[in-house]
């Protein structure tokens, strides 16, 4: 008897989301990124479609990092005080599909940069590169509620991805996003139930579900990676089964999570070459999440990003 591949038939699909707007669409981007639209579990080409390539965003900070692991310093030390130059390097040399600008300098405990200063940084990065932009707040709710609306405003029409809306703080950023024509990242602390609830809350404000990208928090290798993976898988299964509140593309913060790990940073010769370890940590985590169904990867190290790109290529070329 010939082998018959068991094929699952799904009722629904992951939403497609486009980030960035060209001049024809009211922005100034030279390229846009569309992710999602999948109609099966990741890369099961015999079962469904993966119409859009998972995208690689490279992260940069608005102020120089306080403490940079040596391999990261080597890669970007020349530009990390200048977000515009940093962004150019990420696009021109490292091939980033998007730039993720993280406004850590706005945090009251860091430099407490003003909304105006942050908005200037956003403008300079938009001017420096043509790829779409992810704008990410500092994580302090009150400060983000001042900073993000201003940053959203100066980027109006560019169809950026703004982050993040949480269960306890979603109204201001959602309103800014709707007013200025951006997309929104909704965030939950590795909790699919809260994730769904945040999506219900922002959709009740009138934001269309097709304008949301999910960030379920990320656990790097050794720090909850399997748990993050299982949530990604469960989210995808819910999306395919027709749960519209979980049908959004997924984003993972791979770089910052992985390089937090002491195993990635430590100068410990008995653990192998420090110059390779962090890169391998980041690439391994990203590969795991690629299989879990992540659509947008926020990466730090250019070599980890390159390894991820190769893996994406190999998984996509198996499509028949």
């Amino acid at each position, binding site marked *: 008897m010939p082998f018959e591949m068991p094929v699952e038939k799904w009722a629904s699909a992951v939403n497609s989301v486009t980030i960035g707007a060209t001049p024809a669409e009211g922005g100034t981007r030279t390229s846009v990124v569309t992710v999602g639209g999948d109609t099966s579990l990741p890369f099961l080409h015999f079962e469904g479609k993966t119409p859009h390539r998972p995208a690689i965003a490279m992260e940069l900070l608005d102020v120089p990092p306080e403490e940079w692991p040596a391999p990261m310093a080597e890669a970007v030390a020349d530009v990390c005080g200048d977000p515009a130059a940093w962004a150019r390097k990420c696009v021109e040399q490292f091939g980033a599909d998007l730039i993720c600008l993280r406004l850590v300098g706005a945090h009251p405990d860091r430099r407490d940069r003003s909304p105006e200063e942050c908005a200037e940084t956003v403008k300079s990065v938009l001017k420096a590169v043509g790829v779409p932009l992810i704008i990410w707040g500092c994580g302090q709710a009150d400060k983000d509620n001042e900073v993000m609306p201003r940053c959203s405003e100066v980027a109006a029409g560019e169809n950026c991805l703004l982050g993040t809306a949480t269960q306890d703080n979603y109204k201001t950023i959602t309103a800014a996003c709707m007013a200025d024509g951006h997309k929104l990242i909704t965030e939950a602390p590795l909790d699919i139930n809260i994730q*769904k609830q945040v999506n219900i809350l922002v959709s009740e404000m009138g934001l269309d579900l097709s304008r949301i990208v999910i960030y379920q928090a990320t656990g790097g290798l050794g720090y909850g990676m399997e748990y993050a993976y299982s949530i990604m898988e469960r989210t995808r299964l819910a999306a395919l089964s027709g749960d519209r509140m979980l049908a959004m593309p997924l984003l993972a913060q791979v770089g910052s999570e992985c390089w937090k790990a002491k195993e990635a940073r430590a100068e410990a010769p008995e653990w192998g070459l420090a110059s390779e370890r962090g890169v391998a940590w980041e690439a391994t985590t990203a590969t795991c999440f690629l299989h879990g169904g992540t659509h947008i990867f926020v990466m730090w190290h250019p070599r980890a990003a390159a390894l991820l790109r190769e893996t994406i290529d190999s998984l996509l070329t198996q499509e028949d």
Partner: protein
Amino acid sequence: MYAIGERINGMFKSVGAAIREQNPDPIHELARKQLAAGAQALDVNVGPAAADPLAAIEWLVKAIRQVTDAPLAIDTTKPEVMRRGLELAGPGSIINSTKGQQEQLDIYLPMAVEHQASLIALTIDENGIPRDANGRGEIALRVVAAAMEKGLPPERLMIDAVILPVNVTQATPWHVLEAIRNVKLLSDPPPKTVLGLSNVSQGTTQRELLNRTYLVMALAAGLDAAILDVQDREMMEAMIAAEVLLNRAVYADDFVKAYRASAGR
């Protein structure tokens, strides 16, 4: 759960009158209200009193199609009325229903394949309604085998294990639950299961309480679909809670809202 709204049925006075007078307004309203209440499909039955059932089904399906493209479950025992209903309703419709004897399966299985429809099969045959779960299972097995032979995929076959009023035969609700569990073991993938839910409470004084309690029990046994009064809000919310408790839907604090936003897609 796949919810099929039961209210467009000529047995209801307002529907019977609308059909007789060819007044589409009450039909439009029932279609819209049931879809808004969470129906994913609408049952359509011209009722026993229709003088010309063929003309009645034509008028009724056309009237519904003026307001919605939702799948319709054409509910009749007359093959020619069924065929006309399916033609007008379009692909994705539901045949409601066939019985388990061969001569009926020979009519309705090819009809389902031809019209790209799903088929509800009652576990009734020439000997009537079986007394217990085993009898229901035997008929279901025959139907599943015949469907495979005729090329109707299991996901388009819906076995209805036939619930009877609890005040008439009190052992039946349990037999039907057992039958639903057994039907799920008949093939892989298994056929779908469906119930004409309101029948369980026919003639009783606590209809809504019985309906929603039995619906939750049947869902726990593996029920996939029901023909029911979707405008019974408490029952629909009990169903939504059951879906969460059975891990068929992801919990969120506003899980009822989330379910309603996802239904009727």
